């Protein structure tokens, strides 16, 4: 009896200790059971009909990239935190495929813990978007934000290039992929290169700015604008970005993480490089990015103006003297 109590006590202690001390490891271990098949090209199952173990190919859409998974914002989650607990039974019940999936708002909505993320406002904005208007609830957050791999790049990255790539990949995952596009539309996917043929330097624009810069209603108070507009409403007015009052200040270049980097990095290089500091009013547009019309070097503009007026003044004085001494 004493042995039984001691064993029970030790068992309880070790369970509690494990749960407190290493939840990540515990999660990883629990997920390993799922990933044994879902991170592999093949899986093995016992076929009751043939009474044999059979090796089969895994549906490629159900294979997870463990590296991306580990880097994702939800990496510490158990699979069954979002998926049904019934998935713990193997082989899985085929009916489980029909389970309604968790949405972001199920966890993040109305929770003061996530207040800074403004999920409720994001949902409001999303409900105004063309995606929701056309597809309703069929179009969930996960259509763009893969819950398995999602990284808050705009919030954390200090590279514009990475933010742009990451964001555009979300759009392109459907808009440049017929298979995914068919999930929400029966029409043929328009060719992006053709529909953007009016855009000068198309390739450069695709690399340097996000689709959402032109295709959303910019919300300065929201981290990323989620009101994706109808294609007819997308901005085609170049000066929206290409002007001293560029909307990029309120979108792509507004992030604090970039600003901090700019203050710590480039701006600490004074002297001659200080000449390249752009638009005094726009500290976020750092000297590592150039946008025609928006990137103005104030010192140079002043120097230009002084030289220009000096030249015009000189010409005027010379002309007057010529007339007087004629």
């Amino acid at each position: 009896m004493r042995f039984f109590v001691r064993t029970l006590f030790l068992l309880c202690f070790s369970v509690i200790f494990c749960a407190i001390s290493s939840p990540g490891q515990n999660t990883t271990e629990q997920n390993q059971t799922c990933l044994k098949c879902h991170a592999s090209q093949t899986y093995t199952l016992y076929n009751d009909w043939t009474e044999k173990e059979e090796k089969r190919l895994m549906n490629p859409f159900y294979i997870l990239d463990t590296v991306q998974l580990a880097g994702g914002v939800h990496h510490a989650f158990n699979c069954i935190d979002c998926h049904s607990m019934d998935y713990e039974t193997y082989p899985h019940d085929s009916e489980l495929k029909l389970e309604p999936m968790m949405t972001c708002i199920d966890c993040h909505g109305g929770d003061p813990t996530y207040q800074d993320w403004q999920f409720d406002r994001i949902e409001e904005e999303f409900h105004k978007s063309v995606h929701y208007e056309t597809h309703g609830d069929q179009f969930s957050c996960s259509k763009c934000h893969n819950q398995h791999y999602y990284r808050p790049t705009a919030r954390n990255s200090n590279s514009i290039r990475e933010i742009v790539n990451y964001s555009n990949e979300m759009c392109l995952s459907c808009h440049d992929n017929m298979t995914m596009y068919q999930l929400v539309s029966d029409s043929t996917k328009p060719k992006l290169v053709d529909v953007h043929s009016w855009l000068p330097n198309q390739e450069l624009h695709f690399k340097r700015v996000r689709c959402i810069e032109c295709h959303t209603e910019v919300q300065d108070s929201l981290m990323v604008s989620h009101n994706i507009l109808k294609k007819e409403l997308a901005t085609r007015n170049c000066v929206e970005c290409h002007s001293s009052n560029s909307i990029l200040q309120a979108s792509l270049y507004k992030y604090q993480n970039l600003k901090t980097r700019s203050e710590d990095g480039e701006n600490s290089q004074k002297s001659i490089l200080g000449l390249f500091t752009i638009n005094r009013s726009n500290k976020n547009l750092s000297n590592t990015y150039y946008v025609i019309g928006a990137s103005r070097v104030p010192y140079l503009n002043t120097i230009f103006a002084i030289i220009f007026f000096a030249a015009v003044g000189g010409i005027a004085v010379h002309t007057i003297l010529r007339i007087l001494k004629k």
Partner: protein
Amino acid sequence: MENGKKLYLYPLWLRIWHGINALGILVLIFSGISLHYSTRGALLLRFDIAIAVHNIAGVIITFNYFIFILGNILTKNGQHYRVKVQGLPKRLMKQILYYTSGMFKGESSPYPVTEKRKFNPLQKYSYIFVMYIFLPALIVTGIALLFPEMIIEKVFRISGVMITAVLHGILGFFVFLFLLIHLYVASMGKPPGKNYKSILTGWHS
């Protein structure tokens, strides 16, 4: 010009080149200012039109520049652009003194136009600077901005495109300044319209 004799200084090819260059540069300045100072209210040209116009004019000016180079190699016109370092500061100073004081005292030009000396020293070296340094640099930076993917990503933590664009803008500004002064100096003929007429007819009287 000697003894009131007419001189044929500007052959047809040079006048055509000069005409295209003048119009092209004007278009480039106009569209360039529109791009650099683009704003929501139409300041000069609409942004997309300014881009197209600037690109087309830039390509035309580039091809035209090669006509100028070729013409200077194949004809005698090239001799007017040969640098003679010896006594250069003295010659430049002499011309500056004429423009700033001598001409108001009724003195005659220290370097009158002859068949062998089309330009006075100030003209000559400003043309050499513009045609052999500024314009090629503008063309190179302009082509780079037309294909920005060719430009080095970062130079000392500053965007390569940014440096190229700023350099292009500075050079463009100096060409604009040159144009202003060039047009003014051209008005110093007697009568003031004489030199404008010369570049149209080819004859200097």
